[in-house]
């Protein structure tokens, strides 16, 4: 049981990291990015190709993450700007539909070009004992990266000027403008950051299980579930929900079975919306 729960926490940290990117973009502009998982796959495939070309693993991973960031930057400049120009009501729907289209374009292109590509980073070394359970080094490294990234994000939003500027735009866009913050550049920054986080998830996930070129939709849906349960727009909420759902996922698939587990996760999201739309840690709008 301890082993299953620990595995759940390892998985949950990845879930949290995946949800944070989605929740930030939503909190800032009301856009639910349905191409989020595809950005992770961009990083995975870029890193896998670099690895195949003989680039050292660390450099390949970094290159993959930067590649996801670059694609994020291009998307923001080309499409997101015109989404944000819409009034709030139209924005939500247009954002959903456009990012769904983007998701198709990226997935279609990658599967066409690299139909069997997958990223799996093999972290060598033997198993490590933790709480009486033997854990793989890959799991521990992945969790450490997720924890550091999550801690850095929280510190960034609480302590740095830029982080406070982001929070001010989330709370009150007009007020932020009045004190000299440019919401458009803050949104670009957050969209790129979210893409980089998605890329990072692809790297850490590939340390425990391969990330194939077709993983995008599943990753997007996972991110969606985590974000909804944690509360749309809440960074700590995404991590709490991620860890919770990670544990639920491993326990349920260990004792019941995989297809019921998917249904349990989806039901968690649907029930959260119906019973507590603000999620675990989100604020009521």
């Amino acid at each position, binding site marked *: 049981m301890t082993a299953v729960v620990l595995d759940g926490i390892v998985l949950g940290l990845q879930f949290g990291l995946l949800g944070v990117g989605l929740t930030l973009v939503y909190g800032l502009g009301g856009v639910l990015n349905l191409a989020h998982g595809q950005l992770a796959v961009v990083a995975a495939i870029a890193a896998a190709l670099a690895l195949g070309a003989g680039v050292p693993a660390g450099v390949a991973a970094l290159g993959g993450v930067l590649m996801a960031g670059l694609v994020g930057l291009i998307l923001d400049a080309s499409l997101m700007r015109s989404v944000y120009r819409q009034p709030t009501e139209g924005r939500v729907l247009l954002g959903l539909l456009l990012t769904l289209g983007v998701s*198709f374009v990226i997935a279609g292109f990658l599967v*066409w070009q690299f139909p069997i590509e997958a990223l799996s980073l093999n972290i060598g070394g033997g198993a490590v004992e933790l709480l009486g359970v033997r854990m793989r080094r890959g799991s521990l490294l992945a969790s450490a990266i997720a924890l550091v990234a999550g801690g850095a994000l929280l510190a960034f939003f609480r302590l740095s000027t830029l982080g406070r500027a982001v929070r001010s735009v989330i709370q009150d866009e007009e007020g932020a403008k009045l004190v000299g913050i440019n919401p458009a550049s803050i949104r670009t920054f957050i969209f790129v950051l979210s893409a980089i986080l998605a890329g990072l998830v692809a790297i850490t996930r590939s340390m425990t299980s391969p990330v194939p070129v077709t993983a995008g939709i599943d990753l997007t*849906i996972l991110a969606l579930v985590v974000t909804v349960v944690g509360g749309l727009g809440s960074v700590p909420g995404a991590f709490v929900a991620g860890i919770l759902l990670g544990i639920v996922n491993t326990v349920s698939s260990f004792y019941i079975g995989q*297809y019921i587990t998917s249904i349990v996760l*989806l039901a968690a999201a649907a029930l959260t919306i119906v019973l507590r739309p603000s999620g675990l840690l989100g604020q009521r709008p």
Partner: protein
Amino acid sequence: MRAILATGALLSLVPLWLGDSRFLMGLAIGGLVFAAYAVAFNVIFGETKQLFLCVGALAGVGGYLSANFADRAGWPLPASVVAAALIATGLGGLFSWVAVRRSLDVIFTGIVTLAFSLSYANLLLGQRTFTGGENGLAVASGSETAIRGHASAYYLFLAVLLTYLAVYRLLQRSHVGWAFRSLRDDEQAAELAGVNVSRYRIQAGLIGSAMLGLAGALLAHHEGFITPSTYAFGHVDVRVLVMLAFGGIGTLLGPVLGAAVFTITDELLVGVGQLREVAYGLLVIVLFLFFRRGAIPALTSRLRRLRA
């Protein structure tokens, strides 16, 4: 109503033109089914802005249940189809009711119904006894009837589509329709004017879901073999969105035009494989960025300008 009759007359000529090519008639029937889905989605989303991302799933509820009622329980075919469609109606009505009661906005309604779609897909894969899992399910009932023929099935689905269009037009013309449109433009004003916004939303949800369940059930008996991908989100919902985006959300004939154009393009693009998905993605992006009103509104406004 004249527009519907004209469409019906035009579409009823298609079998004469396609002759008895089994392949082409199959395509044409597929186009009719998708047009019917798109009209149903139009009733729910186009009229009352409830984003039901479970078009395929509700059709699948109709299809799989009807197949099981007829083949396993031995019910007569019409009873199975009606019972399955009623259950789909109940489910869709439930989603609408929850969305209205909890006043969910577009995005939350979308997520709840998407969660249902994906759960249903998982359930289809898991419940092998009733669904055959990913290997699919052979549907025996209907095999000796007209529903399996080419021309007869074509006219059956054409009749279904024309009925849906007539129901949609009647809805638009009735006082219910005026209410629909007033709430779409300004919900608060509609409520202040005494329009029961919630009731109309739920009515639209019920009617649209009934249409989906019925079309899905008939499709199962027509095809004689269904798999989870027959009703999958990626296969049905995404296409319906593209069709409506092209034809025009909230228009009477937009879904029909969209389905026709899409069915033909889809077949032309069969050779390019994965690039087809890229093309659809680009199409969605371009359509929603530049032609948000769709082809039918663009055409009618051009016609009006020509006449003036």
